[in-house]
């Protein structure tokens, strides 16, 4: 192997077909309101943890839906579980159970 002084960049693209959708299926089977998000971002705007760090539940939720789950495990740890997101969601997404179920999925699917 030759060192050319640069590497082949990895793709930023979400490759939906190649991604791992087990977590998404797992969550949907336990929390049907998972599907209801319209990406309004009110959960993220009100988020207690998001006030102090870059924790973004809207995006985390979306990334799981797209099967981009490599960072979920480290990101989800920042949530304080305070429940403000639950109170502001216009679609009635049970955000707290989503958080809990994401943790469960990490555990049960050994991610």
């Amino acid at each position, binding site marked *: 192997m030759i060192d050319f002084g640069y590497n082949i960049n990895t793709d930023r693209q979400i490759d939906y077909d190649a991604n791992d959708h087990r977590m998404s299926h797992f969550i949907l089977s336990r929390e049907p309101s998972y599907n209801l998000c319209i990406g309004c971002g009110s959960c993220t705007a009100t988020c207690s*943890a998001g006030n102090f760090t870059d924790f973004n539940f809207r995006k985390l939720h979306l990334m799981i839906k797209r099967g981009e789950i490599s960072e979920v495990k480290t990101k989800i740890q*920042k949530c*304080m*579980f*305070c*429940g403000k997101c639950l109170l502001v969601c216009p679609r*009635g997404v*049970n955000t707290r159970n989503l958080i*809990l179920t994401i943790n*469960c999925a990490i555990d049960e699917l050994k991610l």
Partner: protein
Amino acid sequence: MTFDLFVLPFFLGLIFLLVVLGIKYTRWINALPKADILKIRNGIFSRKFFLSIKEIFFESLIHRKMFKQNALSGWMHMSFAFGWFMLIVIGNIESRVYSGKHINPPYYPIFLKFFVHDKKVLPFEIYTVPGFFRFSMDLMLLLILSGLVLAFIKRQHSKWFGYQRKTKQTEFDRFALTALWFIFPLRLLAESFTAGYYLGGGFLTNSLGWVFSCFLPVQYLAYPAWWAYSFALGAFFVTLPYSRYMHIPTEVLLIFLRNFGIKTEKNFNSFSEIEVNSCPRCGICIDTCQLNTSACIHDTQSIYFLRSVRQNEVKQDVAFDCLLCGRCQEICPVGINLNAIRITKRRDIQTLTPNSYNYLIPTQPPSVDVVYFAGCMTHLTPSIKKSMTEILDVTGVKYSFLDADGTVCCGRPQMMAGKIDAAQQLMDYNKTLIQKSGAKTLVTSCPICYKVFKEDYNLNIQVLHHTQYLWQLMNENKISLKPSEKTVVYHDPCELGRGSGIYEEPRQIIKSIAGLMSTEHEKADALCCGGSLGNVQINSKQRNAIQKDVLDELQKFHPDTIVTACPLCKKTLAKGSEAKVEDIAEFVCKALQPTANKKIRKEQFKSLTKAELIELAIEKL
């Protein structure tokens, strides 16, 4: 004759039961934390022992709490427990009289009428010693049978007994129940047949025996009846440790341990195990549960949850489908710490993924006398924090608004979800901040925060919910309020009322400025608004169903205002209410008397040092 083969089913069953109970109880007690074992040692030789005996008499035998709830239900339970207990006690004395010995085989008193046929005494000669015993024993049997009849009726008409919804029994429990139900009718038959032939027995068995002997070959039926009676007893004893009837002996143990000062811990230990085994599965918790009455959820109530704990198959969706409102705990006749046990089990089935809040770095807050902590939810109800800061400003107290720029959660929600370690990290952060402020008083607007500050933070300063603080301010004349003609109902928040025992302060405050109307469920019996963070499972429709029923009750007599003392309750109720929903802080803030308060402020200014005045002026700027 002191033995017959038919006693064996009973005798072996009894031995089996005693061995199993012996093993279980020894194991549980040994597994208790050392401090708890010490408490037992100290407790046995103290007043607590006798207090326990008293409690056992009133609760386990007489079922006083049951009577309070429903007389029929109380009678049913009392007749079984007290009647059977008395049968054993009187039977033992009777057998001593007959045998002349102090120690008899355990089956002897049970089957005494088989072994001893005393024809000399007439059935109603109760003034003789044998007559007294015969009468008493038949009376107790009749008592039990009356309970049995009620139990039959209850199967059909559970509503008469105060049960809105029948408990879903397991097959095994049903088997044990059948065995139990057979015991006393069979005893009646066995004693009656024997009495019919030998002309013995008391007023009940003798008369019945005479009737039977008229048309039945009682001399042949008696012996099989004794066998059947023995079998029923044996079957019941063998099934008891594995059925709900385990509560009968375990509750006694629980009462002792509880009186000795043992408490439910944050983790599931053998005391929790004893509590779980003390659950009689009476089903009272089902009717009191709003998930059942409002949200059509019928399988997650404490009775079913504890059963799943006993069977070691706790499911996440059951464990987390509970409002943790504490209504069932309040009403539980055995007094089991249902919330605490559920939380410990939530902890057990939690994932291992740890939380990490290393992004939180405590800063130095300003030095003050009072720290005001609004709480996460209060930030979604800005009128509460605005009212509180206005009131605090008026009093002139030196305070800081600790979480003005966003709250770090108090940790209680994580705790309720069983994530104790995560909660601890948040608690450590907030504790550091509070301690750094040097405040002597912590005031919070959120009952959820209040409970955890009070119980788990170990702050060594005064911790108050704003309800208490406002009442204190009123009593100290630091604020004066203008009365109005308004009619008000007060909604008790779960964490403040049942959770922390604060019922009076809000009511006193309201009464002093408005007309307080009472509601059907209040104080310890108050309903949960449905917004609880304790429940993670229910969907928004179910939450709304609970909220609607609560509002229907609160608005029944058309109050002007619904006052509550929790941002979450306020937010939950406000979205469906026709009446105005206010937090008590808003209610008080609106009633502030400006002139009187100015005076107070002036006086306070007088007592302030120059430096303090300057600081205050700067803050005001």
